[in-house]
């Protein structure tokens, strides 16, 4: 019975809890975002070398960081789902994946826009950019595999195995790409924010937190839909207020 409780009621309680938490996360994300953008665009001064262009940093860096962390979190949830057979963890993993992929995409997009004025090219095959691109591919692989399998349980387990293999590979990929690039050319592309202005740091940090909160909000919203969909046969779902309405 104890196992049953663990297995079946975790999504039950989580569904309600998530519903209550979502507005709070959403509001704080919005507020922090406005504050961060205000500091970034109004308070922080222009950079000595890059002029105004550096202001892309406030969205670029948070999304880069998030795309990487979200992969790890996704893989961890997926592994939990695979090993302990907890359904909620697998659902969380598949809820995180699209958000992670979108952040990777934003990072690539903003980076490309930044590259144009800085390097005169939309894209260079720099180690960091390349590994971000590969990260996007890994996300897409996870999502595609999950989408191509119809049986949700098999999909969860297969995608989880892929995510684990991927996360073992991520460090290998990261170092190999870095090494690949430096072997060819010197560090023509090095941006070091050595003496960052304090307001810049504040803005970036605020935006980072805002992005975290946004990611949490969206993930929770998505996971609620997934719970609804997968558990639609259970009794508790049919007794939910929003279903009865």
């Amino acid at each position, binding site marked *: 019975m104890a196992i049953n409780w663990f297995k079946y009621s975790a999504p039950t309680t989580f569904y309600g809890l998530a519903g209550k938490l979502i507005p709070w996360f959403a509001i704080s994300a919005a507020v922090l975002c406005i504050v961060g953008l205000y500091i970034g665009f109004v308070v922080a001064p222009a950079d000595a070398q890059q002029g105004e262009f550096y202001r892309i940093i406030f969205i670029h860096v948070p*999304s880069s960081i998030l795309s990487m962390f979200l992969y790890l979190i996704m893989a961890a949830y997926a592994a939990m789902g695979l090993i302990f057979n907890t359904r909620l963890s697998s659902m969380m993993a598949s809820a995180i994946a699209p958000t992670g992929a979108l952040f990777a995409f934003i990072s690539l*997009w903003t980076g490309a826009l930044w590259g144009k004025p800085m390097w005169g090219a939309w894209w260079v095959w720099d180690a960091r950019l390349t590994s971000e691109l590969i990260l996007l591919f890994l996300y897409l692989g996870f999502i595609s595999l999950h989408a191509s399998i119809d049986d949700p349980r098999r999909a969860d387990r297969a995608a989880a195995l892929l995510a684990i293999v991927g996360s073992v590979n991520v460090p290998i990929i990261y170092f190999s790409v870095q090494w690949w690039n430096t072997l060819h050319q010197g560090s023509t592309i090095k941006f070091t924010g050595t003496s960052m202005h304090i307001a810049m740091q504040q803005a970036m940090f605020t935006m980072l937190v805002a992005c975290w909160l946004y990611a949490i909000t969206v993930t929770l919203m998505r996971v*609620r839909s997934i719970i609804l969909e997968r558990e639609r046969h259970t009794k508790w779902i049919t007794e939910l207020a929003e*279903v009865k309405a």
Partner: protein
Amino acid sequence: MSLDIWMRENPLSYIWIGSYAVAFLIFAIEIAMVMHKRKITLQQVRLMREADESEQE
């Protein structure tokens, strides 16, 4: 080429439109998709419930 010139002259607009507008558009689309998904799922669940009820009768 004209993009280059425009970019140099209006760096702030370039940043706003290029990065932030796109990023927020993506966020908005993602939120819209998630809400749409929830609506559809709820609809399906309701349909299923009604089907079950009519079966029992």
